[in-house]
């Protein structure tokens, strides 16, 4: 689990992820030959041989892992979902067909996965990195409770979190400003 948390926020191209996967799988074969007490570690390591987004396609293995999330889509529909600890919000949304775009594939290079976090939960999220704040400043329809979905990883503390997708509005500027002639 820690392995995933450490690696996913890094900028990983598919090429890098595949290389990583190969390396990790080779290492897990090594561990295979060691004592039975290493079994738990081996299980975690094999689980780490996943491409970005594959982890979210696995169902929760036990009730303790479940974190309930509600997405509110652009039409205002509430979509309740059973996520699990460690799920990345962007990929969880993709698994369930929620229209949350991730143009740069979670590499902190765009603002298309912009969501509004319900105010009761904003302080249960980790503080945004400077890079995320920089990108949020560019997101259309920016609000105080705005975050990038690809930077939110579920913890048990976020049970019941509600995430609203921004409306597409006409004539928006990146900072909500209406241009005046100058």
């Amino acid at each position, binding site marked *: 689990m820690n392995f995933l948390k450490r690696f996913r926020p890094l900028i990983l191209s598919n090429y890098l992820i595949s290389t990583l996967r190969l390396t990790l799988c080779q290492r897990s074969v090594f561990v295979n030959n060691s004592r039975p007490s290493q079994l738990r570690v081996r299980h975690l390591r094999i689980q780490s041989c996943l491409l970005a987004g594959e982890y979210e396609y696995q169902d929760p293995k036990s009730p303790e892992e479940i974190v309930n999330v509600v997405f509110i889509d652009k039409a205002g529909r509430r979509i309740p979902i059973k996520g699990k600890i460690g799920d990345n919000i962007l990929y969880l949304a993709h698994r369930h067909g929620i229209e949350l775009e991730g*143009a*740069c594939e979670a590499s902190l290079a765009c603002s298309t996965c912009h969501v509004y976090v319900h105010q009761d939960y904003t302080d249960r999220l980790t503080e945004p990195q400077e890079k995320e*704040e*920089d990108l949020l*400043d560019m997101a259309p329809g920016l609000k*105080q409770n705005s975050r990038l979905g690809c930077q939110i990883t579920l913890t048990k503390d976020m049970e019941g979190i509600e995430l609203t997708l921004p409306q597409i509005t006409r004539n928006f*500027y990146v900072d909500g400003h209406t241009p005046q002639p*100058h």
Partner: protein
Amino acid sequence: MMSRFSSVPFPLRRSLATTVVRNPQIAIIGSGPAGFYTAQQIFKGHETAEVDVYERLPVPFGLVRFGIAPDHPDVKNCISTFNQIAKNRRFRFFGNVNIGTDVNVEELRKAYSAVVFAYGAADDKLLGIPGEDLKGVYSARSFVAWYNGLPGLETLNPNLDTDSVVVLGQGNVAIDVARILLTPVDILRTTDITEHSLASLCKSRVKRVHVVGRRGPLQVSFTPAELREMVKLPDCRPVFSKTNFEEIRQMSQEIPRTRKRLTELMVKTALDEPAPEDSARWTNARKEFHLNFLRSPSKFLPNSDSSGVKAVQFHINRLEGDRAISTGQTEELQCGLVLRSIGYRSRPLDEQMPFDSATGVVPNKLGRVTGCADLYCSGWVKRGPIGVLATTMNDAFETGKYVVEDLLSKPSIQDQKCGRDAVIDILRQKGVAVVSFEDWEKIDATEKKHGKEKGKPREKIFIIPEMLSIAKN
């Protein structure tokens, strides 16, 4: 088909002919983000509509390939989404086809249920001041196209044999060109920057870049991430004059959230002692990044043998609210290269298509072209050449949604149209070498292969005949 029908009595023949409802065929002009995201929405919202994307160049992706700076590869990750869209069996790419000369908009309208303009803004805004045609004065867009390999721009040969460059305009494009001019060449060596521009930049004497705006720090158009990169650039010192910022620090409470962090970064860099991690770098830096405010260019001054630009003359402004008012005073900045980064303009593809030359966009409401039931527009040609990828994406989704809505309300529209075969015939008669998406993938593979040999993600090909010969092999 006709020979089978000819023995059937006429009324019955007609009713047999109309039992098949043809899938709507949509033509999208332009294969940048606006084109692809519109296609994506059409596929999502309509089960049978087919999309043909026309592109002037043999290679797709528009500004994602030619506009995003080489040292920002992650922003190009959207290409994998575009590749997925292209794999849809209802998608077809027609590269190397110029709408306007090879086939015109009317011919497309006769063939397709709907035509979507998504071709962006290919022209520059001009200042219209004396000396604009001097050697050494270019649009920032040409400079970007030069290092990004847009076919035709490889002969630009911008003058880098000068220590000072003036960039006019304070948007993200201005910052991009400043950054490429000031970044240590060893960093650029591992990007997909073109070989010829890398060679020129290796010989560059440029030490100082001024990014000049007509108004003040609160009116800049560049965004925080880009500014932060400049402040952290190796071997480079930011030079922001204190006079622009002292008053702004006083009024920090009134600044809206979206500008707050950007403004704070500028103020801090201008007024405060550098942070420990920046201090040594700024002291030892050999290059400088300047932000100059309240300066409107009035004239480009030639050097003594008229071989190029030597300086830019400016009017000094003051601000009244958001507006720049000239104070009557002037100032000169010496430089051997000027990059004009004041915005782009679209142009109509031919004289018949609807286009508002005053605003430089296709007249429309929510992407539906005014007065033409089968015409739509998406992206910069729809709302003007401003905005980041997310803006264009949202905009394309809006157009796509309305294209689908209109198609669903007239399901047999394609029956009144002659279909894409008519256009294919026209192209064949003219001898146009149409490039398919599979053909592009051969060019793509060649670029990546040559890039790998040099430790770059790709080595861009910028000669069109070379692209075509790879495509057709």
